[in-house]
């Protein structure tokens, strides 16, 4: 059984009198621990695809399921502990807030104690290689550091899958590599990842890459078989 499955997903948008098809019969399966990258230009439907994959938007047709359970039925619990971590790039709260408070906020919303939230926030920051900013306030952070905080917040509920729409968007070139390294570290850590990008070099290291354009997802829709590796290298 797939970790996440989108089956024949259709999404339409109404623009005045005109109806536009954003996603036309899109199917995609993700295995546990798999890193899938989707390359698409602006207005290709990539954000809609990810919002539907995370259950933040409902499709007009088709089914999205997590571990076999329909997201429609799971409701908000799909984004809860051990579910899907959706990267929200905008930090909430005021600028004077501390990083640990920001990262641990989802745990407080789940009724955990402040101490517990801080502990897990530190752990999440370590996983995205951002321990050095744990004591900072939000107003002191660079755009790249803010994104790392957002990424840590997305994994603080220990999701099995992280969904990230253009994770390096709005970050300068000098900090882009930092974000990509953190994302690859998470993927290498056994976390499944579904990310979109408009930059082909961000596909590097993904287990699978697909393109999205005119509402159509192109590429291998299912996890591939493990590559065949020779047991003995030919000696020279």
């Amino acid at each position: 059984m797939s970790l996440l499955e989108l089956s024949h997903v259709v999404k339409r948008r109404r623009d005045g009198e005109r109806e536009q098809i954003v996603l036309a019969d899109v199917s995609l399966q993700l295995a546990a621990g798999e890193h899938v990258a989707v390359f698409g230009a602006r207005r290709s439907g990539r954000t809609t695809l990810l919002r539907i994959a995370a259950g933040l938007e409902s499709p007009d047709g088709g089914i999205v399921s997590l571990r076999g359970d329909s997201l429609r039925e799971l409701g908000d619990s799909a984004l809860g502990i051990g579910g899907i971590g959706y990267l929200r790039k905008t930090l909430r709260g005021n600028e004077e807030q501390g990083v640990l408070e920001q990262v641990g906020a989802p745990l407080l919303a789940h009724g955990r104690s402040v101490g517990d939230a801080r502990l897990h926030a530190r752990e999440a920051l370590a996983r995205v290689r951002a321990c050095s900013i744990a004591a900072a306030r939000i107003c002191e952070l660079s755009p790249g550091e803010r994104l790392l905080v957002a990424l840590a917040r997305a994994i603080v509920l220990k999701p099995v899958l992280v969904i990230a729409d253009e994770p390096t968007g709005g970050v300068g070139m000098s900090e882009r590599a930092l974000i990509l390294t953190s994302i690859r570290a998470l993927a290498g850590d056994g976390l499944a990842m579904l990310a979109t990008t408009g930059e082909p070099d961000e596909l590097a290291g993904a287990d699978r890459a697909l393109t999205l354009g005119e509402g159509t997802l192109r590429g291998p829709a299912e996890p591939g078989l493990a590559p065949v590796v020779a047991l003995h290298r030919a000696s020279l």
Partner: protein
Amino acid sequence: MQSPMHSAVNWALLGLVIERPSYAYELAQRFERTYEGALTLSSVSHVYTALATLRERGLVAELESDEPRLRSKRRYEATPSGIAEHAEWLIGQVNEERRRQRVLVTQLGALAGAPERALAVLDAYEQACLTEAREAPAQGTAEGPGVTRLVERLVGEEARQSVAAKLRWAQYARAQLQALPPRRVDAPPPSP
């Protein structure tokens, strides 16, 4: 006049000898490390055959030694003409790459009368690009001093930039093909 040397393996091996003088076994090992996934040696004897060709053409020479050496212990260095001809071949490769790309694109244009076929070719082209993009080394993974690291950085950046351009071109070409007006179905010719 000698016929041109076409073997990419021979030229690649010459490149390694230019980088630094080596003996056959070491060259085979460096060859595997450097060109993994791009060029393949059939066996270690392939290196001896290639070195013999390079020597006959005056592109490499055996480093002088006072003692007689086994074939496997002979060290080779590039000659001045080897260095010059290698540079010329490299320039030729740039043009060759451009020519091949142009042939591919022109052939695709020739399928404009059957857009569904052209789109199928384009899908396959795009998939090959995606695989290349996934397998390209991530930026920042080859930092540090030294020629080896420099080569890795250059190879990585070339792969990243060229695949980015190809993917964008594929999307442009698909949009162009999809925008073609539907073919008119002509009435069959009247039977005699």
